[in-house]
């Protein structure tokens, strides 16, 4: 057992299970100290999708429990971003069902999906900021559509930008921001309405190590402060392990390592290989798995 319930980690320490399976179960100890045994926020059941060719995802089943952070690993082009977009209905599966907050997004119309999407925040691979709008209008996009008064918008945008430590960019346009700053603004945009689920699509992809650490620290801050369930796509093992072995210290205002041998009990892993889910489990199970592909990926 690597992680220890009741550690200094500020997250919840209830026990519970999460996965519906699909991965060839790695021989491992049961995970204790996990997120609540409540209704999962996201459930994938035998989901498959293809685009004019061989399937991109095949027979994928897993779930995300409340307050759980799931890290989706896999090499480039394996279908990680597609999986993320399936969750909030940006793409439709060919087979299977996807439950988001208990509702099957695979059978809903685009109109029916909008209220569900508003409850989720998504950070796209390159930020996907609207380049004709200022940072303020990008972050406040949803609030502007909902006709929230300007003073309220300004206050909440300042709050969100302060969270990502970019308050000075309020009036700037995305073109004048660096790659890392764009990702941080995208995180602020995803968080401004305090979503019930956050989806991160390779938030550190293409960034230098220092900026990547800053982004991962923000993801951790969100996880440990608001305890919002999330699914993070990455192919950078270093980011995944950092999330698992560190916690955000609010007093110090930065992340600190968990005591030796401990990991965050609510941060778990999924791994894809050629469109199939080949691993679903904890960090301990990941590093001790016999699966050849996982071992190669880790090495």
């Amino acid at each position, binding site marked *: 057992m690597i992680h220890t319930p009741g550690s200094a980690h500020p997250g919840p320490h209830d026990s519970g299970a999460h996965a519906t399976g699909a991965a060839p179960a790695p021989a491992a100890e049961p995970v204790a100290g996990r997120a609540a045994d409540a209704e999962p926020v996201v459930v994938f059941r035998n989901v498959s999708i293809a685009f004019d060719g061989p399937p991109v995802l095949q027979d994928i089943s897993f779930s995300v429990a409340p307050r759980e952070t799931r890290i989706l690993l896999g090499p480039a082009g394996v279908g990680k971003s597609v999986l993320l977009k399936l969750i909030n209905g940006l793409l439709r599966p060919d087979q299977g069902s996807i439950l988001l907050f208990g509702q099957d997004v695979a059978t809903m119309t*685009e109109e029916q999906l909008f209220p569900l*999407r508003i409850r989720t925040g998504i950070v796209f691979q390159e930020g*996907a900021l609207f380049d004709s709008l200022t940072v303020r209008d990008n972050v406040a996009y949803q609030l502007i*559509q909902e006709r929230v008064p300007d003073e309220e918008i300004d206050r909440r945008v300042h709050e969100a930008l302060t969270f990502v430590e970019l308050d000075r960019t309020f009036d700037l346009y995305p073109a004048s921001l660096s790659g890392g700053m764009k990702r941080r603004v995208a995180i602020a945009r995803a968080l401004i309405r305090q979503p019930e689920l956050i989806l991160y699509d390779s938030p550190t992809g293409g960034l230098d190590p220092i900026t990547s650490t800053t982004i991962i620290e923000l993801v951790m801050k969100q996880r440990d402060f608001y305890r919002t369930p999330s699914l993070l796509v990455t192919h950078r093992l270093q980011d995944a392990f950092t999330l698992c072995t560190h916690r955000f210290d609010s007093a110090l205002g930065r992340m600190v390592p968990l005591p030796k041998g401990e990991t965050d009990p609510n941060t778990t892993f999924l791994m894809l290989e050629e469109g199939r889910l080949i691993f679903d489990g904890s960090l301990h199970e990941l590093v001790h798995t016999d699966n050849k592909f996982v071992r190669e990926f880790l090495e």
Partner: protein
Amino acid sequence: MAIGIIERTAKDIVLTAQEYTLFAQRAVLNVFRPPRYWTDFLMQCNIVGVGSSAIVLLSGFFTGGVLALQSQATLSEFGATAVTGRFVSLTMIRELGPVLTGIMVAGRNASSMASELGSMVVTEQIDAMRALGVDPMRKLVTPRLFACIFMLFFLTILADAFGIFGGAFVTIFMNHQNGTQYFSQAWEHLRYPDIIQGLFKPLVSGFIIASIGCFYGMRTTGGTEGVGRSTIDAVVFSSVIIIFADFLMTQVLLTLFPPI
């Protein structure tokens, strides 16, 4: 092999036509249900209408001038140079004003719509918009469609007017004919069916420009190269379809309002 290619191409054409029909239908029907984005509509009116006014005005003026120049030689053979005004005004109002305006605006705006929306697609801004709970069809496509229809109507009037002025300029200052005669000929032989014909066509052209520009923009794939392809497709197809639709409309309208 050859049959396979023909089959695939035929299927692609049918599928594209089907997708375009559904796309255009959705864009039109959105206007009957909230939310409606009036600010975006007005912004698009400014971009399409005010932004295109200079090219429409200049192309109208010079087309009218060319008509007067070209007709001069033929009409003088029959001693009929006095009808230059009638010839220019009828040609501009019934045919060249609507078609030229449509093609000029297609070149300027179908391309900009396709490239703007295409760039948004490839940079995931469209997905981001959907993820933020906003329907891109309502927010981006419907305002462009109705702004284009609305403004093309007025741009065509502008092109017609400046075409007649261009004809007048050539008639008076280059062909040294009587200006009063030119304008009285231009005015007296105009009938309501001519005006109806000339002002109905831009409504259809506006629909074609915006729907095709947005359609190709929204189905962009393949990064920046794909954006370039979408832009070319949007301009080529909208221009050709405007001319084809003009041919069909002229046939129908001439049947409904036969020339005297």
